[in-house]
């Protein structure tokens, strides 16, 4: 046995047999490797193996090797993929924090610096992020230990997406409840990460939207915690652009404000610019499908133009007159199309299917926005709807393909 243990650079033998041994040159890795035996089968902490495994594989590419034949394992595994999505979310998160502070001080008519805005937002947003992660990961760990499987990495992204889709004024216990709901009923019940047919983060938002409507719509988009010595400015209105959109679209903010994100809304959704940076990261790294992003934009613009043609001429302020490109900027369309619709698990898998899936998301978004003012957040509902239909789209695409091949043969 001893001979098979690999020799390390410092002349000692690695305590763990191949193939799990790696040269422990990094200090963190050395710590991980030294405690590893405790979590192995028969070790005293065996019960917590899923937790240990999650941490280890998150930090380093797992040391598993294939047992038969020669295969190459890509280092770009699920955890690395998820991590890239987190990186892509950072612009929206940072901008969202800044905007929370900016909107807050704007409502009180105070002059503040960039840093003050950011710190205020940081203070308000961080608790939501922490609660979302703590509760969601807690549920995942409980399931992993109960069922004896590994902790799935899926929650890394979901835990960040949930806070970004919520208004900053949301009570923390609601965040916790939605995290439990989406992890248990959105994922674990179907078998965990990769088995869910709907995007869990959107499910969490939909849950809150229907369960606590008063906390998800209305004048809740700006944190109005009192500022000593200052009162709300007279012209203050807590409505988002989607409300203006329904009443009189000409009352909406300017295009540049909506593009850069100087408007009220959920934490991560306001800035189209930040979403575009995220989209660039996702597309360049190959994690997100550019076809879905492009096709959903096409769907929105196409449907927007159709609406313009059909719009009633005698009501010039009707929402149907809204210029088509406004639909790309207003609300959370950019955020949804970039981060939610491209979820590789719940989206369509075939290449043609992705075009159909994306276009339909865009089309339904515009239809719901214009014709159903009760549900202003049309992007959420249309992505969830298309999540449900994605397997059907794939099925039809494959059937069509088979038919075509048979004809050619």
């Amino acid at each position, binding site marked *: 046995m001893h001979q098979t243990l690999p020799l390390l650079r410092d002349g000692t033998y690695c305590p763990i047999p191949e193939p799990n041994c790696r040269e422990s040159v990094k200090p963190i890795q050395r710590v991980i490797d030294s405690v590893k035996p405790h979590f192995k089968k028969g070790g005293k902490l065996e019960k917590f193996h899923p937790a240990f495994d999650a941490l280890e594989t998150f930090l380093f590419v797992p040391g598993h090797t294939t047992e038969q034949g020669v295969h190459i394992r890509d280092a770009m595994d699920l955890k690395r993929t998820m991590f890239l999505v987190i990186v892509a979310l950072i612009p929206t998160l940072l901008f969202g924090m800044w905007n929370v502070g900016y909107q807050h001080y704007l409502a009180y008519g105070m002059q503040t610096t960039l840093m003050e805005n950011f710190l205020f937002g940081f203070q308000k947003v961080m608790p939501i992020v922490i609660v979302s992660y703590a509760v969601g990961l807690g549920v995942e760990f409980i399931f992993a230990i109960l069922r004896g499987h590994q902790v799935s990495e899926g929650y890394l992204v979901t835990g960040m997406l949930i806070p970004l889709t919520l208004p900053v004024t949301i*009570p923390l*216990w609601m965040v916790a409840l939605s995290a439990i709901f989406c992890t248990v*009923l959105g994922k674990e019940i179907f078998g965990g990460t990769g088995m869910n047919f709907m995007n869990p983060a959107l499910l969490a938002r939909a*849950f809150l939207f*229907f369960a606590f409507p*008063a906390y998800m719509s209305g004048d809740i988009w700006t944190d109005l915690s009192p500022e000593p010595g200052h009162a709300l400015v007279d012209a203050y209105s807590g409505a988002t652009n989607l409300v203006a959109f329904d009443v009189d679209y000409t009352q909406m903010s300017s295009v540049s404000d909506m593009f850069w994100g100087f408007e009220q809304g959920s934490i991560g959704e306001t800035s189209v610019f930040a979403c575009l940076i995220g989209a660039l990261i996702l597309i360049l790294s190959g994690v997100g499908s550019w076809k879905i992003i492009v096709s959903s934009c096409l769907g929105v613009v196409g449907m927007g133009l159709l609406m313009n043609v059909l719009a009633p001429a005698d009501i010039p302020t009707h929402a149907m007159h809204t210029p088509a490109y406004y639909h790309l900027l207003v609300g959370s369309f950019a955020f949804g199309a970039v981060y939610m619709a491209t979820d590789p698990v719940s989206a369509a898998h075939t290449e043609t299917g992705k075009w159909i899936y994306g276009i339909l998301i865009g089309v339904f978004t515009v239809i719901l926005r214009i014709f159903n003012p009760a549900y202003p957040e049309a992007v959420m509902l249309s992505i969830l709807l298309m999540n449900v239909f994605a397997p059907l789209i794939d099925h039809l695409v494959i059937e069509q393909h088979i038919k075509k091949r048979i004809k050619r043969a």
Partner: protein
Amino acid sequence: MSTEDTPAADLVKEKKREAIFSKKNIQTLRDPLDDTNPITVQVLGICSALAVTVQVMPALIMSLGVIFVIAFSNLIISLLRHTIPNRIRIIVQLIVVALLVTLVDQFLKAFMFDVSKKLSVFVGLIITNCIVMGRLEAFALSQKPWPAFLDGIGNGVGYGLILIVVAIFREFFGAGAILGYQIVPQAAYDMGYVNNGLMVLPPAALFVIGIYIWWQRSRNKKLVNVS
């Protein structure tokens, strides 16, 4: 939980006169509560389970109504089973069920008008409840009156059990009350607790039934491969 096996062949008629509460009869009564529950295992009668479970009181009355209808329609059809021509049996069954449903409906209108208004069409719709017709076809047509009656009671109670469990969850989380009595104290509302609006909507009943089925199957190993 019962540990005896339920041989599928126990539908074979027995010649001997059996005791009123023989083992088999008890089984007939008890199986629908868990192993062959009409809602969670046979997935019948879902519509009314979604519609009348917002509060416990209507769910309770609805359950009693359904128990009455299933039990007595099973009994009557079982008594008539040798005289019903096979080709028109569905019509005969419908007439019997319609009679009983009308009785329940009139009774509720006369003595419990408020609940009757809340249940609205769903009392009348008991006639289309798949459980009633399902038990008539599957059991009462080929069994003696007494087991058929017990089977009706069992299935009715199995249905009512789910309805009441679902209604308790929905009323508690949706309105903070059970049977109209406020359970969640005002202090909790003052601290920021809010009733869950989703629980009042019909989809919540599906969630609760789904979780119930999950719990039931993880507990009752007999059900794991039944579907």
